[in-house]
């Protein structure tokens, strides 16, 4: 009969109903995202995404594993399988590295230089960009749009294109061959990006919260310090991580503007260990590279929780 499914036949679901169901599911998922709830996937999708992510991650994981294993191996079979455990490659931790009859500087002052650069960049960027990001997000002043545009423009310049200009600026300021000079360059070139990132986080914090704090008697500074800043943790974590990584991994400016070996950082030290490739000690290189990665991994582990808490919502005052 019309409107009834014949016995034994598969029930035909109209296409419109399927689309409507899909739309409904999509809507629900978006609503979950907006509410900051964990989005649920079907089992099949979960398996597919896990397989894809595993395939993509395997080469990266294997390269890190190789680096780690080779740093503890006296010999690698066909350059792949570690054959004999050794700590010899890690000798740079307790003695200066020798190249022929020359003793390199100990790794510790070099690590300290790297840490100083990374921390200076991180602290300065967080301080400046949280304040400037707040101003760009909340205040309406003349030239605001232009400043935003200019910061993006500055960030768009690749560092290599500015090398000669920066060299002359540092030369004029007598900051060549100093870590201070490189710090200033890094900070000034990174601030626009972190300002833009943090501005996005400020934009996501509802005005209601600020108004509530004003009603409760806070001034601008107190609102920023006691109300906004705690809500900004993920944003601060994000720019801290980016700026730390940028400072810790900086190579080009150190390589170009630092001429004294005592002032080098781990990135340029690694480069000098490689040299012309002819004399490279791969075990030592792997160990120094693993050592170089440790602070980055630690920093990421400690900030990833904050990075993942990226939802905002209005609360009643």
């Amino acid at each position, binding site marked *: 009969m019309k409107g009834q499914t014949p016995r034994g036949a598969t029930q035909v679901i109209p296409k419109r109903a399927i689309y409507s169901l899909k739309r409904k599911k999509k809507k629900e998922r978006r609503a979950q995202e907006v509410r900051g709830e964990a989005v649920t996937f079907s089992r099949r999708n979960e398996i597919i995404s896990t397989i894809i992510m595993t395939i993509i991650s395997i080469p990266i994981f294997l390269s890190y594993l190789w680096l780690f294993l080779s740093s503890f191996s006296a010999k690698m079979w066909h350059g792949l399988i570690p054959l004999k455990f050794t700590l010899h490659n890690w000798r740079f931790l307790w003695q200066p590295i020798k190249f*022929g009859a020359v003793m390199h500087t100990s790794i510790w002052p070099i690590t300290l230089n790297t840490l100083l650069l990374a921390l200076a960049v991180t602290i300065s960027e967080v301080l400046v960009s949280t304040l400037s990001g707040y101003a760009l997000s909340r205040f309406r002043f003349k030239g605001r749009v232009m400043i935003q545009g200019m910061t993006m423009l500055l960030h768009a310049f690749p560092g290599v294109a500015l090398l000669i200009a920066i060299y002359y600026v540092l030369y004029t300021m007598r900051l060549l061959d100093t870590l201070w000079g490189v710090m200033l360059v890094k900070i000034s070139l990174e601030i626009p990006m972190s300002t833009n990132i943090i501005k996005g986080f400020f934009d996501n914090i509802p005005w209601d919260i600020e108004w509530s704090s004003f009603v409760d008697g806070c001034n601008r500074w107190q609102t920023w310090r006691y109300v906004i800043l705690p809500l900004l943790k993920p944003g601060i974590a994000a720019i801290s991580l980016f700026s730390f990584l940028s400072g810790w991994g900086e190579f080009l400016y150190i390589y170009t503007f630092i*001429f004294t070996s005592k002032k080098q950082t781990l990135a340029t030290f690694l480069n*000098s260990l490689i040299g012309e490739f002819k004399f490279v000690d791969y075990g030592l290189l792997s160990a120094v590279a693993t050592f170089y990665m440790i602070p980055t991994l630690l920093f990421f582990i400690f900030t990833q929780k904050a990075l993942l808490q990226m939802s905002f919502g209005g609360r009643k005052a």
Partner: protein
Amino acid sequence: MRKFGVLLGILLIMAVGIFAVTTVTIKIEGVGSPADTTRITNFGDAVKIANNILAACDSPYRIKIETTWFQGGWDEYRKEYILAFKAGKEPDIRAEGHEDIPWMADAGYILPLDKYVKKYNDIAYYDVYPSLWDAVKFNGKIYAIPQDTEARPLYFRKDVLRKLGWSEEKIANFPKEIEAGNVTLDDLIAIAKEAVNKGLVEYGFLHRPSNGGFFTMMYYDFGGKLFDEAGNLIVEEKPLLNTLQFFKKMVDEGVLPSSMTNISWRSIHKAFVEGRSLFWFGGTWHWAEWQRVAYHSKLGALPESYEWENIGFALNPPPEKGGKPITMSHPFTYVVSSHTKYPELVNLLLAVVSSPKFLVNHALASGHLVTRASAAIYPSYVKNKFVASVTPMLKYTTVLPNNLAFKKIMDPLYGAVQAVELGKLSPEKAVKWFEEEVKSAIPNIKIVK
């Protein structure tokens, strides 16, 4: 009593003023393989002697040194100096290849040293080989102190020749046969081809994979000249074509990989020390480098006994029978920054470090040769089997010209060799390309047809 105290105070201040010693820091930078590091570590002992001399002369100065060893390519080494010089942060003394003197002197980066060479001539420089002074001159002035020299021999694997059926006597006589002009470059190709065809080696020949003096040496070997009688820079077309045809022939005969200039230095050394290549156009310093760097996958760094057992060295054969074999020296030198605040102290230090003891110490550690006759008769130098064997090669040596425009010839020469080996250009077309390149860079150069 009070007056006495004031007088005593004044005398004390004067005494401190008179006997005060100022310690100045002299920065030194060097470059090279791990075997070459004596180039700067020698200064550790030299500075003690220099300070003793200063103390004996009641000089108010004492020297402290700060040394840096640069690990990287030549272009990076040059770039670093240019940037550091502009910032006033360059080292006072720097080890440099002699071919860099023209551009450094021309740009005012380094000091002319004639005055100091004259001053210390009687104790340090009177017996420096005259050809080395020529290598450090630019526009008639001395700009550097020769630090070491070397020969560039043709290394060969004795073990492979044994497998080819050569007797020990024939192997031992091989260098002498080359010196006598009885072995030509074509003969080498034939031997290499036999070894490759029998599966004894992977490569017949290997040469350096980057630009360097070797390619100019081969041009010289084919009779090429770079200066005419009036001292003008020239290029001779016929020897250039023959040189390129030689590289082409090696590739065509299957004894040289066409991608030779794309193989890494490490892979090349590894292939030769492991006996996978019969010939290697190397330098005397490689003998020491193989003992220091673990190129061999099983033996690591080679014991010298292994080298004597399996590796031989000879002059580079001439292209035709009865011709003269050839080698090339690339003297390393010490140059002095024109910014240095203490040229007198720097030159005192250079005079001390040029004493036979330090020259021999460096030569024995690095497989280089000494720059002074008095060092060549030093007992430990004379007793050393390797340096004693390679020193006679200096009779056949040549050097790269100290000319500002020479790099504009050297670069396209290397480019032409690369193009021929890769099969991108025939030797004839490569010559044409080379001439166009050179003429555009040096418009007044004479190409001898």
